[in-house]
């Protein structure tokens, strides 16, 4: 087997090093993106402001993507249901808030579900009473 000439061997070695570096970068980017996709966060909140309750969530993701959410709650007019979809553009987040005013001694059950793409990632029930706080 004839050994490679040094002037061919060195560029070949450089090319291999560069390709290895590129492969490393590609794999690390892929791992980072996969990690970020899992790292979608939903922070729920319930705040009392005067006689109103502000109930909702903030959805934040390091990568862009589509979300869907639904909210249902019982009320004097029956079951109220609401749902919508949207797109998150990092670094921004999406916040949804329902303002409700329970009657004295009334308990309102608010159910909130959040999907990331097609996957249900979060579900929370809030029990809201006028005299809580």
């Amino acid at each position, binding site marked *: 087997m004839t050994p490679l000439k040094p*002037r*061919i061997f*060195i*560029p070949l070695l*450089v090319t291999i*090093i*560069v390709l290895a*570096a*590129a492969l490393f*970068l*590609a794999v690390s*980017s892929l791992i980072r993106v996969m990690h970020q996709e899992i790292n979608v966060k939903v*922070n729920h*909140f319930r*705040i009392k*402001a005067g006689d*109103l309750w*502000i109930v*909702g969530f*903030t959805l*934040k993701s390091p990568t*862009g993507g*589509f979300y869907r959410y639904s*909210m249902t*709650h019982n*009320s*004097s*007019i029956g079951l*109220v249901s*609401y749902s*919508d979809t*949207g*797109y*998150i*553009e990092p*670094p*921004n*987040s*999406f*916040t*949804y*808030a*329902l*303002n*409700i005013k329970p009657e004295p001694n009334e308990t309102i059950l608010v159910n909130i579900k959040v999907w990331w793409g097609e996957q249900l990632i979060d579900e929370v029930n809030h029990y809201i009473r006028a005299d809580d706080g």
Partner: protein
Amino acid sequence: MKSLSALTLTVLIALIAISTLAVKQTAASSLPNNPESKADDTLYLRRYTDNNLTTAEPDSTTAANITIKGRNTVTQRWVNETAVPNGYNWTINPGTYNFTFWISRSHQNITVNVDFTFGYINADGQSTTIVTGQRTGLEPPVNNITMYNITVYKGESVSISSGSKLFINVTISVSGPGGQSATFYYDGISQPTQIITPSISAVVPEFPFGAVFLPPALLSAYFILKKRIVKLKI
């Protein structure tokens, strides 16, 4: 050996720059193509000088009264007349978004649900929601125009890029007898409808280092490689 190190370094820089741009390009092209129709937009939203955004004060000729009959839903959009100025990005600080609106109803058997969405449309026409707030089961006194608020607290700041336009979507749904109705008022005088955002800062956009360094990196890689190939041929 020096030229080899330079070659390796240059090629690496070029690869990093190319991959960075490629990732950005892929992300941009993966955005849904959702151009916003301007035909039905009502251009009332403006920015005031006190660093908060509020709705404008349309005169009586541009004020809108939207009547919705029972068991129906209507959505109306308002877009600001001027975009976020070129050369600046806006940052809306964390805080409270307060939407004030006025409604009336024609009969005591109907109730009104109102939700508002506040967001922006970027230069590519992509619509992004910042906050959505909702109130349900509203029962204003019959034939009496009544004010309500929707409050949303957002603990995160929001970045809006240069050239974007802001919008408000308002959806009003009415439950009750079909022959009855509710009216939503969008007005700056007698019923001053408005959204007040947290304070807004204008910032100069980040300098695009990747785009600036890519052409020289590629050029140097080309010349160095060309030199090496010529040497190999000899």
